[in-house]
C-alpha cells in the first residue's frame, strides 16, 4: 500500500512525467488542496531515495474576496454609475446601495457623475458621461487570468492599497524521480513490536529509517555537584600517593590552634577582625593543652629552639578566642601534635580537603568560605628538594607538568615556595599553590624530634574547578545561587585529561 492516495497518484504521475513535476500544478490538476500534495511529498521523502524534491518559493498576485467580487460584477464606481437612470437618483437612495459609499466618491473623482444640491426633494445625482470604461475591473480580470505582469508596478500597488490584490508567497516542490524510484511503495513500520517478533512479520516489513541527527532523550537522573566531583578526584590522588585523611570536621577553632600553634604572632594582620570571623558565642575555647600552650607562649615571647622569638607579650586570652578556622592548617597542627605525642616517632603523610572561612570582601572569585586542599609529609631529613619532588608528582596527577618555584613568605613555613605552572591558554605562569617546610618554632614545641622535617603545601579547590569547568563567577558554582543546569550538564571530572569547552547550555 502506498502512503495515502495522493502519494500513490503522485508517484504514477511522476512515472509518466518527463523531467519532474510541480506540486502546485499537480494539486490544481487533481483538484486537491496543495497541502495534501506537500504532505505526500514529505512522507515519500522520509522513505529515502524514492523521490527527489526541491523546495521552490514563488511570489504570486492573488485577488482578495473583494477583488474577486469586482472582477465579477464591476467596480463599485461603475456599479454606482450604472444604477443611476437618465433622470438621476436621490443621493440618499444611492447611498443605500451596497457599493454606494465607496462608489459614489470614486465616481465623483472620476467625474462620471454630478450632484445637484438644489433639487426639490434633496440632493440628486446625475450621470455626466454616457459610457464609462471600468478600468479597475479590467485590471483585476487580468490578474485573475494570471497576467498580473501586464500591470504596471504603480497600478498593482494602487489595487493593493484598495485591498483588492494581495501578494502571496507559494512554497512548492519540484519533484523528480529518486534513485530508488518505484510506484509501489509499501507503508513503513516505525518500530519493532512484540507482535511482530512473535508472528515473525518483521521479516516482510520495511522499517522507517531513524534520524540519527536528532538528539536522544536524556535519562532521568540525579547529579553530583561539580566542585565535589573535583574534591573526590583530589582525595583519590592523595590516597593513590599514600596520604591519610585528617579529621577536619570542626569549623570552629580556637585562635590557639588556628594561629598561635603555627607561630603566627598575635598582632599578625590575619588575626584582625577584618580578616577573620570571631565568635560571640561560644567566644572562648574551654580547654587548651596547657603544657604545650606554655611552650608556645615562651617561643613567641622569648624565643627558644634556636629562635629569637617575636619578643612581645603573648596573651592567653588572645589564644582562647574562638573563630571560624581560616585554614585547614589548624587541623594539620592538631594532627602533628597528636603525631608528636606518639613515641617513637613514626613518619606520616596527611591530607585534608575542607571548608575554611575568611571575613573578606566578596567578588567574582572570592567568597567568605571556600575549600582548602592541604598535603603534609613528616619524616626525618626531608628537604626542599623532597617538597619539590612531591609537588611534581602531585601536580602531574592533575595534568600540570610545567612547574616552577618562587621564594615566598608564609608566617609558619620557612623556607617557603609558591608553585607556578605555565598556563597554555593565558600564555603565562600562574600561581597554583603555596608550600614550604613548617618552621621549627611550630614543630619543636609540639614535641616532634629535632631532626624531623615537615613539608606541606596547600591550594584552593575552587580555583582549579573554575578553570576546569570554565566558570567565571564563583557564585554560579558554590552556594545556593548555583545554576542547577550547570550541575546537570557538567561532565566527569578527569583532572589529567585535556579540558574541553564548557558544555553548559541555557545558563541564563
Amino acid at each position, binding site marked *: 500500500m502506498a502512503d495515502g492516495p495522493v502519494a500513490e497518484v503522485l508517484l504514477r504521475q511522476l512515472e509518466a512525467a518527463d523531467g519532474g513535476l510541480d506540486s502546485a500544478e499537480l494539486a490544481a490538476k487533481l483538484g486537491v488542496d496543495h497541502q495534501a500534495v506537500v504532505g505526500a511529498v514529505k512522507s515519500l521523502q522520509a522513505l529515502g531515495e524514492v523521490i527527489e524534491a526541491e523546495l521552490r518559493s514563488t511570489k504570486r498576485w492573488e485577488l482578495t474576496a473583494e477583488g474577486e467580487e469586482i472582477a465579477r460584477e464591476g467596480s463599485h464606481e461603475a456599479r454606482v454609475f450604472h444604477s443611476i437612470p437618465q433622470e438621476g437618483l436621490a443621493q440618499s437612495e444611492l447611498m443605500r446601495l451596497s457599493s454606494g459609499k465607496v462608489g459614489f466618491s470614486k465616481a465623483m473623482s472620476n467625474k462620471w457623475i454630478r450632484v445637484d444640491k438644489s433639487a426639490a426633494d434633496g440632493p440628486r445625482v446625475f450621470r455626466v458621461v454616457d459610457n464609462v470604461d471600468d478600468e479597475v475591473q479590467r485590471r483585476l480580470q487580468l490578474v485573475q487570468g494570471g497576467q498580473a505582469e501586464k500591470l504596471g508596478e504603480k497600478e498593482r500597488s494602487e489595487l493593493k492599497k484598495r485591498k483588492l490584490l494581495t501578494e502571496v508567497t507559494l512554497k512548492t516542490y519540484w519533484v523528480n524521480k529518486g534513485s530508488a524510484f518505484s510506484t509501489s511503495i509499501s507503508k513503513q513500520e516505525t518500530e519493532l513490536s512484540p507482535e511482530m517478533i512473535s508472528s515473525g512479520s518483521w521479516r516482510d516489513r520495511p522499517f522507517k529509517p531513524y534520524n540519527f541527527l536528532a538528539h536522544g532523550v536524556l535519562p532521568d537522573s*540525579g547529579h*553530583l555537584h561539580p*566542585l*565535589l566531583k573535583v574534591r573526590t578526584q583530589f582525595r583519590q590522588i*592523595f*590516597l593513590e*600517593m*599514600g*596520604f*591519610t*585523611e*585528617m*579529621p577536619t*570536621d*570542626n*569549623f*570552629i577553632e*580556637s585562635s590557639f590552634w588556628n594561629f598561635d600553634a603555627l607561630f603566627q604572632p598575635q598582632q599578625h594582620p590575619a588575626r584582625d577582625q577584618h580578616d577573620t*570571623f570571631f*565568635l560571640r*558565642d*561560644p567566644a*572562648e*575555647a*574551654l580547654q587548651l593543652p596547657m603544657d604545650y600552650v606554655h611552650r608556645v607562649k615562651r617561643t613567641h615571647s622569648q624565643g627558644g629552639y*634556636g629562635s629569637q*622569638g617575636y619578643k*612581645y607579650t603573648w596573651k592567653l586570652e588572645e589564644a582562647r578566642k*574562638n573563630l*571560624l578556622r581560616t585554614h585547614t592548617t589548624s587541623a594539620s597542627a592538631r594532627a602533628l601534635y597528636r603525631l608528636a605525642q606518639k613515641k617513637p616517632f613514626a613518619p*606520616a603523610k596527611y591530607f585534608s580537603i575542607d*571548608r575554611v572561612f575568611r*571575613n573578606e570582601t566578596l567578588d567574582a572569585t572570592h567568597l*567568605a568560605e571556600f575549600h582548602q586542599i592541604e598535603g603534609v609529609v613528616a*619524616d626525618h*631529613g626531608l*628537604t626542599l*628538594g*623532597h617538597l*619539590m*619532588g612531591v609537588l611534581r608528582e602531585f601536580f602531574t596527577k592533575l595534568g600540570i607538568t610545567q612547574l*616552577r618555584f*618562587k*621564594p*615566598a*613568605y608564609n608566617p609558619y613555613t*620557612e*623556607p617557603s615556595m609558591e608553585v607556578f605552572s605555565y598556563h597554555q591558554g593565558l600564555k603565562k605562569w600562574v600561581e597554583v599553590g603555596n608550600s614550604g*617546610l613548617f618552621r*621549627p*618554632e611550630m614543630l619543636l614545641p609540639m614535641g616532634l624530634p629535632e631532626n624531623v622535617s615537615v613539608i606541606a603545601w596547600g591550594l584552593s579547590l575552587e580555583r582549579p574547578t573554575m578553570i576546569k569547568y570554565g566558570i567565571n563567577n564563583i557564585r554560579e*558554582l*558554590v*552556594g*545556593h545561587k*548555583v545554576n*542547577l*543546569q550547570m*550541575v*546537570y550538564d557538567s561532565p566527569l571530572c578527569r583532572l589529567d585529561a585535556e579540558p574541553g569547552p564548557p558544555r553548559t547550555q541555557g545558563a541564563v
Partner: protein
Amino acid sequence: MPTVSVKRDLLFQALGRNYTDEEFDELCFEFGLELDEITSEKEIISKEQGNEKAEGASDVVLYKIDVPANRYDLLCLEGLVRGLQVFKERIKPPVYKRVMPNGEIQKLIITEETAKIRPYAVAAVLRNIKFTKDRYDSFIELQEKLHQNICRKRALVAIGTHDLDTLSGPFTYTAKRPSDIKFKPLNKTKEYTACELMNIYKTDNHLKHYLHIIENKPLYPVIYDSNGVILSMPPIINGNHSKITVNTRNVFIECTGTDFTKAKIVLDVIVTMFSEYCENQFTVEAAEVVFPNGKSYTFPELAYRKEIVRADLINKKVGIRETPENIAKLLTRMYLKSEVIGDGNQIEIEIPPTRADIIHACDIVEDAAIAYGYNNIQMTLPKTYTIANQFPLNKLTELLRHDMAAAGFTEALTFALCSQEDIADKLGLDISATKAVHISNPKTAEFQVARTTLLPGLLKTIAANRKMPLPLKLFEISDIVVKDSSRDVGARNYRHLCAVYYNKNPGFEIIHGLLDRIMQLLNVPPGEKKGGYVIKASEGPAFFPGRCAEIFARGQSIGKLGVLHPDVITKFELTMPCSSLEINIEPFL
C-alpha cells in the same frame, strides 16, 4: 603582601643598567619578588577616575612590585636596589654605623603618663641629609608602607619625622588630656585642640582609620620640645611647625608604640634606608631615650647579630651538596655576610639590622636556597613509606553521595554560614532553641551564624532555580555546627544528610521512599528491633501539622521528615508543596 611602586627609569639608573620588562620580571621571580604591574600615574588615574582626570598626569613608567610581608628592608627604592645589587654581587652590603654627635646628644624623655596608652618610644637623627624631590617622596612613602604593614596601621608603632633645625631638645614624650593639647597640625593654618582635631579628622579619608587607637582614652600621647612646641600627637598627626621639606638637612625621627621590638625595627629600617643620603653615608646620629624608671637607652640599635650554622645542616634542609665556602658566598649575596670558621664546616653569619626577619637558622637556610636558585634544586621523592587511610566519616559521605545521585537526587553545595533568620525565624524556631554558634563580627547578615541545619540552604537553592523544570530533587551531605560544652572549643560539627522534593504535589512518599533507600544502603532493617529504624508521628514548627515524623534508628532519634509548613515555603519565596528529610549520619559510622 605589600606592593611598592617605583619609577622604572629611576630604578634602572640606581641599578646601573637597563632591563627589558621580561628580564626584570625574571630577576624579581628569582629573588622572591613579583613584578605585579607596569603602569604610570596617568594610567592609574585614568583607570580609577576616567581619561579626563588623567589629562596632564605624569606618564613616567611605574613598576609595582610585590614584596614579601616580612622584608621591611625592601619597602622603598633604596632598599630594593641595595638588595638586588648585593644579590647580583655588584656591590658589597654597606655597614651601618651609629655615631655620637659632635655636640650634645638629642634626648627624648618619656613620662609615666604614657604607660597606659603608648608606653614605648625610640628616636634617632639623620644629620646632613640631602633630599631631592624623588628621595623626599620615597622617604614619605616608606613611612606610609611601614605604617600599613609592620606598624599594623599605626596601632603598634607610629612614626614622626621632623626638621630638627626648627626644634630645640630635649624632647618630652608624655600623655595629656585632649582638651589640654592645642597645636597647629600638619598642613593646617590654625591651632586646634586635640578634641577638635579628632572631630575634624573623622571625615579625613586617610586619618579617620587611626582615630580609634586613642579616641576613647582619657589621655592622648604627645611630644613637646623644650620650648613647648608640639612635634606630634602620635599616632594621629605631626605638628606643622617641624614639618620636613625637600630642603630639610637634619631629620629627627621618633617612633612611639605599644610594641617595643617593632618600634626598634621600624627605626632601624628608616635610618638604614635613608642614611645613604647623609653626608657621612650610612651613619646615623644617636639619640638618647630616658624611660620613666630613669633608665636611659641609646637608639637606633643598629645591632649586628652573629649566628653559626653548620654547612651540612643547610645542605640537608635544602637538598643540595655545596661546599661551606660556596654556601657562605650564597648567603653573602642575600645581604648576610658569611664566612667559614672553626672546623671548616661551620659558617658564621652576620645578620644586619636590616634583616629583622632572620630569627632562626631556618631563615638562613631559606636565603641560601634562594641564592642557590629554587629551580636549580634537584627534585627527589622522599622514601617515606605509609599506608593511606580515609577519614571514616568522609568515606561514608563519599559512598552515600554517589548513591543519593543514583536515586535521582542532585547534589547541592550550600554555605555553612547564614543569617539567624534562615535557621530560626524562617523555620518557625526561636534562635535560642537552635544552639547555634554566633559570629561576633559579621559584615552582613549573611554571616551571623553557622548553620544548624542544611534545609535552609537547599530551599534557597530551589528559590534561585525556580525556572528549572519540576520536580526538583536536591540533597546535600555536609556539616552543621552546634554549641557543645564537652568539646575543647565549646562547639562541634555534625555530618547531616538533607534531601528535599519540590513539585506540584508534596511527594511525602518520595521522601519517605528515599529514607527507606538510605536505610537499605546503610544496612539498617525496618522495625524497632535489632537496631532497625522506624518513623513515628511527630511535630515541628517547620512541618505541616500531621505531616511530620521523627526518625529513630539504632535506638536513637536521628532526624525528621515531613511535608514543609506553607509558612516555611512562603518565607523561602517558594510556591509549591515541598517535603524534606534531614538526618545525622554519624550513628552509622
